[in-house]
């Protein structure tokens, strides 16, 4: 053999060896676990299987991606196995450890979760306070308050951790410590309810009833809650879901709905409902069908909506809207009257429609009544949002339209009291009690006014 041939033979030999190694490695490489497709919708199951087949088991990032997708669609055991593999292949990566820890905690393997969170901290996770927060939560799940407290202290001034510490201090009778912790938290986050509620409890246990009452009142009207790392986790799961499967389709579909694209896209969205029901989207499709005078399509969707959700405020409103489109205003009124009896979130539109109906049917007194209720509902909503100026404006309109509306007077009293207008608040409570003498919350409001 010539030197050239020798050289080529060596190259071929090396290539054969490489081929053998590839074959061996493919033979021996651990495969991704498959999931039972019957446990989710067919679109998501198909996407998960596609992702599994496209993933490379030699790559840690692929294991992690699959782990996230499995977790997002309710396969925590399979997800955990993938996270474990990913972490083993890329041991220096802290985020993989952190997510693996979340998955372990989800599966109830709490000590293992703590271990991975510690590993994430050691590997310089960008949010060490969050890691410590979850370590603390895990120790609480193990009924180990001492170690939980240590972990929460490691989390520094993370509001969620401060809150947990205050709870533990109250539970163990360290009321002074809890109060000292809660006061700055209340100042820093005045719109969040938990610090006020815990402060009220600590004051009550300290025997300070007046202060407790004040903070219970503040807690009751605080519109927000403290954001914790748990909220971030929840958002991450939502985001993961939107990248694959049925939720990814719904994300696109919702964008189309928002963009008000008509025609075949709507049919595609309708098909999506068969895979995963989405009531707000279905409601929007009904409205679109009504607006486009496709009333049989609206009927069909509305029937399904009713079967799934029952006669809720929103569903009854839509039934009324269909009646209007069919020139049956009296039937529409019946549905809307029924809707306001059921009650629910955002009834203002229905009150507006009822007011318009009674205006049209030459019944101005009833129209006025419903206008008042519309303002009252808007005012109450603004009040619970903590927007007292807007609430007062709406509620004043409500009582002007219907001075017999006790609930509107009550909320007006509350909004004025919390804005510091004691005299006007007192008058509003008085009017409420005049109309409804057993309105205990108005009486309580007056009591709080006197204590101010």
């Amino acid at each position, binding site marked *: *053999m*010539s030197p050239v*041939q020798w050289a*080529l033979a060596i*190259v*071929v030999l090396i*290539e054969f060896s*490489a*081929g053998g190694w*590839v*074959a061996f490695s*493919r*033979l021996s*490489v*651990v*495969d*991704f*676990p*498959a999931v039972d497709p*019957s*446990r989710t919708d067919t679109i998501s199951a198909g996407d998960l299987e596609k992702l599994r087949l496209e993933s*490379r088991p030699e790559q840690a990032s692929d294991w992690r991606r699959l782990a996230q997708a499995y*977790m997002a669609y*309710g396969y925590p*055991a*399979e997800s955990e*196995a993938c996270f474990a*593999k990913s972490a083993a292949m890329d041991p220096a990566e802290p985020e993989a450890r952190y997510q693996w820890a979340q998955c372990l905690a989800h*599966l*109830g393997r709490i000590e293992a979760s703590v271990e991975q969170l510690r590993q994430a901290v050691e590997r310089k996770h960008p949010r060490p306070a969050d890691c410590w927060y979850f370590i603390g*939560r895990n120790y*609480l*799940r193990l*009924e*180990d308050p001492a170690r939980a407290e240590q972990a929460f202290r490691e989390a520094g001034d993370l509001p969620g951790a401060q809150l947990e510490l205050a709870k*533990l201090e109250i*539970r163990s009778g360290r009321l002074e410590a809890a109060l000292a912790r809660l006061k700055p938290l209340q100042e820093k986050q005045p719109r969040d*309810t*938990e610090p006020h*509620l815990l402060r*009220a409890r600590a004051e009550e246990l300290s025997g300070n009833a007046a202060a407790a009452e004040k903070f219970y009142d503040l807690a*009751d009207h605080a519109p927000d*809650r403290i954001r914790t790392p748990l909220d971030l986790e*929840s958002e991450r*799961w939502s985001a993961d879901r939107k990248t694959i499967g049925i939720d990814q389709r719904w994300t696109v579909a919702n964008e189309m709905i928002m963009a008000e694209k008509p025609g075949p896209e709507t049919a595609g969205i309708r098909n999506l409902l068969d895979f995963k*029901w989405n009531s707000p989207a279905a409601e929007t499709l009904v409205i679109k069908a009504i607006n486009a005078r496709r009333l049989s399509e609206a009927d069909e969707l509305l029937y399904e909506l009713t*079967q*799934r*959700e*029952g006669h809720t*405020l929103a569903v*009854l409103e839509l039934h009324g809207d269909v009646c209007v489109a069919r020139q049956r205003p009296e039937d529409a009124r019946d549905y809307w009257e029924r809707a306001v*009896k059921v*009650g*629910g*979130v955002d009834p203002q539109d229905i009150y507006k429609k009822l007011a318009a109906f009674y205006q049209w049917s030459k019944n101005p007194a009833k129209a006025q009544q419903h206008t008042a209720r519309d303002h009252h509902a808007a005012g*109450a909503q603004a009040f*619970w949002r903590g927007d007292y100026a807007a609430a007062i404006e709406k509620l004043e309109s409500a009582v002007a339209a219907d001075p017999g509306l006790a609930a509107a007077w009550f909320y007006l009293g509350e909004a004025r009291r919390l804005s510091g207008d004691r005299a006007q608040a007192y008058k509003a409570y008085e009017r409420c009690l005049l109309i409804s003498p057993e309105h*205990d*919350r108005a009486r309580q409001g007056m009591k709080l006014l006197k204590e101010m």
Partner: protein
Amino acid sequence: MKTKNKHSAKDRPDAPKHEASGSAVRRKARWLTWLLLALAVVLPGPIVWAWYALPPLGAPLAVRATPSTYPASKLAFRKEALVPAGKYWPRITNVQVVDLDADGLMDVLYCDGRRNGVYWRRQTSRGVYRERKLGGDLDIAPPAHATVVDLDKDGDVDVVVSVLGNVSPSDEHVGKVVWLENDGQFEFTTHLILDDERRVADAQPGDLDGDGDVDLVVAVFGYNHGRILWLEQRAAGRFVQHELLQAPGTIHVPIHDYDGDGDLDVVALVSQDYEEVWAFENTGGGAFEPKKRIISYTHNFDVGSSGLVKCDLDRDGDMDLLWTAGDNLEIFYHYPQPYHGCYWLENRGNWEFVKHRISDLGGTYAAAPSDLDGDGDTDVVLASMFNDWNVDGAANLVWLENDGKQNFTPWQIDGAPILLATVACGDLDGDGRDDVVAGGMNPFLPDPRMGEVTGWFSGQGGGK
């Protein structure tokens, strides 16, 4: 040139043969070179293809799942769909086995959060049921619990309904308490007892102030905000509110004379971020001891409290409590946890309640006490909402056999339908043994193993 060529050939007699074989060798060598070259060029292709395209041929990674499963029940049950599952996901929030019309035949009363109403499945003759929605076309969206009580003391039973207003977490003021007043002929008129409240999970009746009428205790679950109220009945159907506690997440408020001093007290399960059982001691006339008591709690704020049922489990004459834990509804997908199950709070008197864990059923959502095997002690039936439903055979319904000394042995009744949120026991078929009725609630899983209201009827076997 020609001569020279001839001569050279003569000089080497074997030359033609050699020449022929030499060219063959050269041809072979050339062929070998080409072959090796071809292999060297071509081989990387399949290798790279194999690397990327061949699926991994090793075994899939092992997966570790931990569903709650138990030995099959030694009591036989016959399963029957009392309200068959339809196309749509069930949302049964509460079931009860009661003889509403007092005709000696037990009926099923259930709250349906999908059809927004309280339904009475009346047993008209043995095994024959007729179903109707209470209050006619009244929409109660959605009801959490129905309580049977003669609220107006007119000699017939009425129904008090706790209205969540929204199954999803929310602080909106959509909760209510509704009184369905019975006219004596089981036609019901609706009255609103409480309105403009956050989500209401429970309302329990009792004469708290000892004035002879029926008052109510109301659990306003809410979400971030909530409270416990007692509503003092001043005139027929007119109530005055008193606040007992401000805290979110109260699930159940069972009323009883827990301290045995002759008046009714209130206990309450406060879940969400607290996971505590509170006691409100009535000192008489509806005056509650200002110092409130926490009679049991856990540091585990994720325990997932799901229910509190009063029951004299040890039959020692005072009222104990069954505390179930297994609610994971705040997260997308749910998994049984090591601390889920059922806890017995043993009443030792003087407001001392000792906690015993009597079951570890994952995702326990409801408990119903009953002497299921008829041996004279109280057993417990548990329903699971959040077992590992990815694993076939995970328990949905379990009964805990009491050996008479409050040592409990778990027996699995069934594994489907999954996602049971409520359970009740009563002798529906009149055979002298209690049957089990459970309701399903599926807010999220596209799974065919669903049921609305299902009955498990006691058969032969077991017992003493």
